[in-house]
């Protein structure tokens, strides 16, 4: 085993250990769960973007769409929690299928714009539909029970989410390296050649889009259950932009990048005020105190900086600097 994969493996274990211990080290469980749902969302997005090169700008439709239907199933229809979540995933798959069929026929930015536009249909539907409650959101989603275990406590919910997350992450990682993943890599590198070798490439891309949609849906459904409500923010295009940001910051096409990105951006979003005050305190510049009020502007700035200086993201840069010649994953 190479030095690098050893380092990788130990990083993974370290992260897992930290995640397990976090609630006991004073981390606030809801924050942890939010991070995990965004990290899962980013991993799902990365599955499509990082390994087919197709950047979807419409993943919010899958994430939020699943959240809404899970919420609907749990509140209005009184379904058990696991069934509601599965239903959310199912609906994400259906939306993903509709989006994917149209989008995978296009490349590059075309793909991005098509997914963005299609996601807007979902957004407007959610906006206008009565069950979503418009700006009020779909409120009061019960956490319910899982195999007889009440999910009411944040700690219990946290560990359930951790299990879901780790399992999904492991599975996503496996997909990337699976026989299917190999074909997709080939498609990405030379599509006409893949066709001439007898592969129906659009089916493979669609397959990947569906897998990605499924996990994005899972992330959205879990988030709805965790938070107990679902709002329009999750289907809005800015959320699609945010998941790109998470992945980009962490490192597109890497295993750990989306997680790192989610941790950094989510924490930043929440702690911006504290950071601002701290900066104000040490520099004496009052402007820093207003950082809190401009999170989206700061996200914009991070985007710009990332693209200009830091395209590979944190993990990607690490791999390129210290990794082997073949910095495919990490």
């Amino acid at each position, binding site marked *: 085993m190479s030095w690098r994969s050893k380092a990788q493996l130990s990083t993974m274990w370290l992260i897992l250990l930290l995640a397990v211990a976090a609630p006991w080290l004073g981390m606030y469980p809801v924050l942890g769960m939010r991070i995990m749902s965004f990290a899962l969302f980013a991993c799902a997005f990365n599955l499509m973007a990082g390994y087919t090169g197709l*950047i979807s700008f419409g993943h919010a439709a899958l994430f939020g769409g699943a959240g809404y239907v899970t919420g609907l199933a749990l509140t209005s229809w009184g379904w058990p929690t696991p069934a509601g979540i599965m239903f959310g995933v199912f609906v994400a798959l259906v939306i993903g299928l509709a989006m994917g069929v149209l989008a995978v026929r*296009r490349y590059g930015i075309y793909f991005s714009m098509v997914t963005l536009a*299609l996601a807007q249909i979902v957004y*407007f539907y959610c906006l206008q539909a009565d069950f979503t409650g418009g700006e009020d959101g779909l409120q009061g989603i019960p956490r319910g029970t899982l195999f007889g275990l009440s999910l009411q406590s944040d700690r219990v919910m946290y560990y359930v989410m951790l299990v879901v997350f780790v399992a999904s992450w492991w599975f996503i990682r496996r997909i990337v390296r699976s026989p299917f993943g190999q074909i997709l890599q080939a498609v990405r590198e030379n599509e006409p050649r893949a066709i001439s070798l007898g592969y129906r490439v659009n089916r493979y891309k669609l397959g990947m889009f569906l897998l990605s949609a499924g996990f994005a849906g899972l992330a959205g459904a879990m988030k709805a259950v965790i938070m107990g409500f679902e709002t329009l923010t999750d289907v809005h295009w800015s959320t699609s932009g945010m998941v790109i940001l998470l992945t980009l910051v962490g490192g597109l096409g890497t295993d750990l990048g989306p997680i790192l990105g989610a941790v950094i951006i989510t924490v930043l979003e929440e702690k911006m005020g504290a950071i601002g005050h701290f900066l104000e305190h040490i520099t004496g510049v009052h402007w820093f105190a207003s950082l809190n009020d401009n999170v989206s*502007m700061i996200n914009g700035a991070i985007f710009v900086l990332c*693209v*200009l200086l830091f395209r590979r993201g944190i993990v990607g840069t690490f791999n390129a600097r210290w990794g082997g010649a073949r910095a495919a994953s990490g």
Partner: protein
Amino acid sequence: MTEIFGVPVSLLLGQLLLGLLNGTTYAMLSLGLAVIFGLMDEVNFAHGAFFMMGAMFAWMGGQYFHLSFWWMLLLAPLLVGLVGLLVERLMLRRLRGMDPIYGLLLTFGLALLIEGLFRTFFGVSGSPYNPPELLSGVLNLGFMYLPLYYVFAMVASVVVCFGTWLLIERTKLGSYLRAGTENPSLVQAFGINFPLLVMLTFAFGSALAGLAGVLSAPIVQVSPLMGSNLIIVVFAIVVIGGMGSVMGAIVSGLALGVIEALAKVVYAPISSTVVFILMAVVLTVRPAGLFGKEK
């Protein structure tokens, strides 16, 4: 009174006219995007922000410098063009030759940043901007009153659109740009100062957005948020028209305005999504868009 779809004809006529007006705004915006996209293979997500800047500059000119609408009609697009020029020169140029998706992401971040900046300084609630004295009248068409300014905006947009089309499709300049999109270094090796051309094109596309902004300022509330939702509709229009096709952008922009107007009278709830649905339909039938060429 005669009716179509249960709607009085006069109302329908009025709607179509207004739809056409909306269409000209769409056309000019999507044209700017198409110019930048078709000639540089870059999607400018900040286009909506540029549109907003055009309107904000017009308003600021009036507010702080007491410059008339006519002055701002000239100055604001120039200023926005200058911003575009700087963006190209300082940022996008470094991404040339890379996957165009990076340009998209960069401009996305830029859009957030620009909007955020304007929001911090000017708040979000917007400000009124009035049409110039000369155009503040109302035209009585018999079946409706049409503010004179709307007529002006419509005519001005159409003129600019077709002027641009001529410039790009019918001049050598256009062929330099199209060639440079594909292989910039070779075009340079032919002795053409392509980086300069790109910069100017980007500035021109941005200026078009700025102009659309100034023209819209007297019609809608001028606010830092005015561009962010519009831009996605405009994306869809560009996709329908065939990305990069100048004619496609103009025609589908106009058509979309009219179709949206029809949707509003026929089945209102669909009017906000009709453009996206249309896009889906067009894509199934013609993946490259109406005027696009299959690559």
